């Protein structure tokens, strides 16, 4: 079952350039999906489109098999969202924010929310504007989780936090995922963290999708071949990136382990981080699609 399916999704702001173009992928249910890309690659646009905060210029979005329409309460109830910089009404106390959630949602698990806030030591009578960045992020996450969504979307949730607050935030998130059947889609720059946290990846480069798939399969489907420098531009099946020394070359190739390797070449597994960076740095002409 797919949690989120996008087909030919594109978004253009005004008459300007396309922020996102020709995006097609399926996100499996019950997984933690990482959305990776450089700044300006269209991550926020994609996330906003995915939850109907923005309407697409072309293409369509399906949430749990049903077409997503803006302004439908049923669809809104299935999605939890923590926006970039986790905005809150600064003048509201934490208790006010819980009241806000209760009055804006038919389904709102305030008991669990209060429990979670108590565990985190966040006082209910404190104004949101006076909480630390980490606490604000936790409150935003608590509000999103209390909706009991099926899909939780987070836009660089921990980017502005210090390492400790960041760890606590991600820890809360992991605990919440373990507690429920939640599917999580989160964008992040911290590739090292994504490796531990995500089991599915979508890579965006300049508004286009350049790779998507289960992390295990992605890692298994790629390898680094090291050996004597090949003849200039020798065609290599599934070549993603190449680094050349004077006599030696390292080639990142997309090919199954079963493909036999030329005796001159030594095959090594590739780490997810290495893989992601290679794809993001890929020149525009080579489009590896999944």
């Amino acid at each position: 079952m797919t949690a989120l399916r996008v087909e030919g999704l594109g978004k253009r702001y005004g008459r300007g350039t396309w922020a996102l173009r020709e995006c097609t992928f399926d996100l499996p249910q019950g997984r933690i999906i990482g959305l990776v890309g450089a700044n300006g690659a269209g991550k926020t646009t994609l996330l906003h489109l995915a939850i109907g905060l923005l309407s697409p210029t072309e293409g369509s979005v399906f949430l749990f098999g049903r077409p997503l329409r803006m302004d439908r309460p049923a669809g809104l109830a299935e999605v939890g969202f923590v926006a970039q910089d986790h905005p809150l009404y600064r003048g509201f106390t934490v208790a006010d924010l819980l009241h806000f959630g209760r009055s804006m949602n038919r389904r709102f698990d305030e008991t669990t929310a209060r429990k979670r806030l108590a565990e985190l030591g966040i006082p209910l009578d404190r104004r949101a504007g006076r909480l630390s960045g980490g606490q604000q992020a936790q409150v935003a996450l608590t509000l999103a989780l209390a909706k009991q969504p099926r899909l939780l979307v987070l836009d660089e949730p921990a980017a502005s936090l210090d390492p400790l607050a960041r760890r606590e935030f991600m820890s809360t998130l992991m605990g919440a995922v373990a507690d429920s059947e939640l599917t999580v889609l989160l964008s992040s720059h911290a590739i090292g963290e994504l490796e531990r946290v995500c089991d599915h990846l979508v890579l965006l480069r300049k508004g286009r999708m350049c790779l998507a798939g289960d992390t295990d399969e992605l890692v298994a489907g790629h390898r680094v071949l090291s050996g004597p420098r090949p003849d200039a531009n020798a065609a290599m099946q599934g070549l993603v990136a190449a680094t050349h020394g004077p006599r030696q070359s390292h080639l990142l190739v997309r090919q199954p382990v079963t493909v036999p390797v030329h005796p001159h070449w030594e095959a090594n597994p590739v780490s997810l981080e290495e893989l992601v960076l290679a794809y993001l740095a890929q020149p525009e002409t080579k489009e590896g699609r999944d």
Partner: protein
Amino acid sequence: MLWLIWRQHRAELLTAVVLLFLFAVPIIVSGLAMHAEYETSGAAACVANPQDSCGPIADRFVSNHIEWANRLVFAAMLPLLAGVFIGAPLLAREFESGTWRLAFTQSVTRTRWLVSKLTIVGAGTAGIAVAFGLLFTWWRGPLNEIDGRLRTAAFVATPVSLAVVTVFAFAAGVLAGALLRRTIPAMAVALAVFLVVRIPLEESARPHYVKPLSRVNDALAHNDPGWRPTTDWVVENGWVDSAGKMLSADAQNAVMREIYGEGGSMYGSDLGLARYMAEHGIRRYTEYHPDSAFGAMLAIESALYLGLAAVLLAVAVWVVRRRLH
């Protein structure tokens, strides 16, 4: 939803109520004194039963209070506060602080969110305006009985006029906020739009909401009935010649010079002028709205401002629904 609206706008409501109170205290104090003086000075009796001797009484009463009455003309600017401080931040603040992403991802659709907010906050603001209008109009009561309720100073302070103009100002602020997404620029635009619409409508449109009546008097009218309340609102006057044609300002000035001489006193007897006019068949011409036009004027003013407000709010809803990014 209701709770959210209350929580987000309770400070504005409180400020409005405090403002109302600050206005109310001096107005009620001076108003009670004025209403008492209206009775004791005999002005009330004069209005009920006009007599020749009433002129000085009514004049004295009006001049005692005209300064305050003129000050209250600024009530016409009160709706501006609603546009700048309630309308403009309503959406701009959400966009500026990013909380729109929080508000629009709850289970309440943004259309319902916006329509509820606009309806309730708009109605509340209009309610405050009605309260101000009732206060001002009560204070002006005696003056209106003498001078009529159609003149600008009286009309703009009526509850209905004040409320519909407030709703328009609120709508202008909301749309400015929806388009500009930043509070301070939205406030500035709300202010500008309000002035650009309000002043011309006030100055040139309102006298023509309904066609004024006209009358022509002989200059030497001996049938002067004496003093009576002037509830007509005179919007145009001048002289017409024997053919019934309006005299231009230049022609009028020429006549004045002929009678009084270059630089002569204008404060002499009217008799010379009256005689001249009678000899040349010139008569006085007046266009005016009678007191009975009040209801129609108010209805037209309401339709105009509420119509404008409806268009602005509809555009704001459309902008938020469609072009959000």
